[in-house]
């Protein structure tokens, strides 16, 4: 109870909610990738993928791969998180209003979790299609044969995949928003008992 009182300034404001809002606003305003995969030697890259729910950029041999639906999907993700951030802020400031509870949503946590799950499934599907194992993180070598002028050319591409700091910030924002929801629930329970 003491922790809930401390984190809510004795029921006046939901501090984790405000912290989650700030982190979510930072996350939604950033175009930096959450996950990246590069196949490069020195500064020359065979391919690069810089992916977040708000910006997806894939290049192969220095040329971009465009999928028309991507800007719309990233816009949907950005608007969803923006809505969640604003709602959490309103719910956290107007904590004494009975209708503030549904304002504290879990969207901030759902997005990084879904992102990771989607990425894992996407890599499995892409890997089985290409006949190679594509890991979520770590260094690896891609070996594949390309037909060229009647010959079979073997290609070796050293690659590295990693989750970036921005992913962990987004996950932290989501975890804090979950904490904010739990505190809000506890405060509502206290209020109804009192």
């Amino acid at each position, binding site marked *: 109870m003491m922790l809930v009182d401390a984190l809510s300034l004795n029921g006046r404001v939901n501090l984790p909610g405000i912290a989650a809002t700030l982190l979510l606003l930072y996350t939604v305003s950033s175009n930096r990738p959450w996950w990246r995969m590069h196949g490069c030697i*020195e500064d*020359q890259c065979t391919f690069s993928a810089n992916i977040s729910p708000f910006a997806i950029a894939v290049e192969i*041999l220095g040329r971009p791969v465009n999928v*028309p639906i991507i800007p719309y999907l990233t816009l949907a993700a950005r608007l*969803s998180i923006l809505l969640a951030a604003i709602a959490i802020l309103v719910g956290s400031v107007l904590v004494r209003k009975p209708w503030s509870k549904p304002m504290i949503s879990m*969207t901030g946590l759902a997005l990084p979790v879904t992102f990771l799950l989607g990425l894992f499934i996407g890599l499995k599907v892409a890997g089985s299609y290409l006949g190679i194992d594509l890991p979520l993180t770590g260094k690896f070598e891609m070996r594949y044969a390309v037909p060229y002028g009647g010959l079979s*050319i073997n290609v*070796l591409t050293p690659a590295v995949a990693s989750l970036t700091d921005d992913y962990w910030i987004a996950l932290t924002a989501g975890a804090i928003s979950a904490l904010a929801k739990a505190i809000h629930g506890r405060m509502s329970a206290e209020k109804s008992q009192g």
Partner: protein
Amino acid sequence: MVSVVRIVMISLSIGVGLGPIVFALNQYGWNITPLITPSYSPPKVDFRMEFTGFRVIDKEPKAVLRLTNLGEIGLELVGLNATAYGPSGEAVAPVTLAHPVTSSPGSVKEVVLDISLSEGSVTRLLPYFRDRGYVDIEVKGEVFVKVFGSVVTVPLTTSFRLSREDVKALGLECP
């Protein structure tokens, strides 16, 4: 009031989540195929190597090739693992790349191969020199090319003619 806020929040969440996708579908005439089809135009990768001559530099035999880059991307020849074969298919000498070669799009570069031809190799080829005065040598192997952050292994087959004069220029005995 709580139920109303909950309904409004759920409606808004669905609206902002699905709105852009519905808008996209509307923009593409409700045809999902062009919306999810990736578009990509790869750069042209086209390079050719052809034998241009045999040279003796500092009593070392060299096969010279011409590398023509007709593509849109630069490449670098970084290594060669090849063997020179005599007319009957016998291995006569290992062949390596004298130095790496960087080729930019549209350029024509000279590629020099070191042929480690020993006196023993020449001895094995003597009967051909006696008969015709020259020997046709075939080089087979793999060339290692760095292209845009990948190491590409390309099969290489080329041939050249080794004359009695070439062997003499090497300082080796030839009948």
